[in-house]
């Protein structure tokens, strides 16, 4: 019987000894809270969750200046859609990011394709350089695609991709990121979780789903 150990007095004595309380104390609290305060969640207030990509496109095109584009193509045999990902990094120098902070602060103002960016506060401290990363997926059969990752709390409602070309089935979204390493994935039609076929896989994900990694480096594409 596999369950007989549950009533074995020796096992119970062992377990009793191991149940002694252990507590690393408030140092843990302080370290954890310091780490998360340094980079709080990017929370989008309800009033700013309207997505009006076309209306913002002109302003954003003026705001950013493309520096480099990475393009890779790979078929997705297992799913209905075929994917291509482009990560295009645009450098926004600190002066520029600071200068246009109000773009993100307008109460109730739509954040357009940058739903991952808080409307009430900038995505990163003003002294950091922000790099706009473009995520592109070619999925002709998809009806909706969203981007989930470390940068948007893995919330599939925060960063939808917009279909930029119905002919090719290309979906795209641009996300401002500070330098760092981010795990991400695509969610197709709200149910198909997809790693980026053209990016390195994330190793050791806690949740058993295939993810990809994008690394934004200081000085990239500037």
């Amino acid at each position, binding site marked *: 019987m596999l369950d007989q150990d549950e009533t074995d007095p020796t096992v119970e004595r062992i377990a009793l000894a191991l149940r002694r309380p*252990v507590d690393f104390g408030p140092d843990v609290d302080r370290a954890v809270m310091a780490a*998360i305060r340094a980079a709080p*969640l990017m929370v989008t207030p309800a009033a700013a969750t309207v997505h009006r990509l076309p209306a913002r496109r002109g302003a954003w095109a003026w705001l950013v200046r493309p520096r480099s584009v990475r393009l890779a193509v790979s078929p997705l045999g297992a799913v209905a859609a075929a994917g291509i990902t482009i990560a295009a990094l645009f450098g926004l120098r600190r002066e520029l990011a600071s200068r246009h902070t109000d773009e993100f602060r307008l109460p109730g103002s739509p954040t357009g394709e940058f739903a991952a960016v808080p409307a009430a506060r900038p995505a990163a401290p003003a002294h950091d350089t922000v790099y706009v990363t473009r995520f592109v997926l070619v999925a002709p059969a998809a009806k909706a695609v969203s981007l989930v990752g470390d940068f948007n709390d893995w919330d599939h409602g925060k960063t939808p991709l917009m279909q930029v070309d119905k002919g090719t089935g290309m979906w795209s979204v641009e996300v401002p990121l500070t330098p760092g390493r981010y795990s991400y994935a695509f969610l197709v039609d709200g149910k198909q979780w997809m790693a980026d076929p053209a990016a390195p896989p994330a190793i050791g994900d806690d949740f058993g789903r295939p993810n990809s990694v994008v690394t934004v480096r200081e000085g990239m594409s500037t």
Partner: protein
Amino acid sequence: MTDAEIVHRIMGGDVDAYALLVTRYRPRLSRYALRMLGNREDAQEALQDAFIRAYRAIGRCDDPERFGSWLFSILVNRCRTAGARSTRRARTFVSDETAARSAAEAHPAEQAAWREEIERALTQLDPDQREAFLLKHVEGLSYEEMAEITGAGVSALKMRVKRACDRLRGLLQEAYSA
């Protein structure tokens, strides 16, 4: 305040509310991390890492009422990663000083020796067996809960627990007969 209420506050931008969850779950998670890794430094690192990862991924906590269980699964994974890493270096055996008295051991010296032997024996188990034993007999989880956290099947988990019990009994018997 319930876990779900705190999670909703955090999602609403209240960063400080997360401290309530850290304080609430720190003792239980500290114990598991230390017992699993057998090393205070690694355990504390895994614990902090788990809390920070949980915060970053809190949007993925599908059921905020069960935040504790979800957090625990993250810690279990962090301990697996840390355990794999630490096998490459010498293990420091830690006997913490916050032990509660065990009714089974009358003499303090015997009690300390018994605890030490148990902890030493625990470090000699395969990581899978140690994990299963701790989740079942120390944390008091059901096999269904363990399956949800570890991703292993119930039958496999029962087998791991049984082997862990057999091995612990053998190691302790060996230690005391020597």
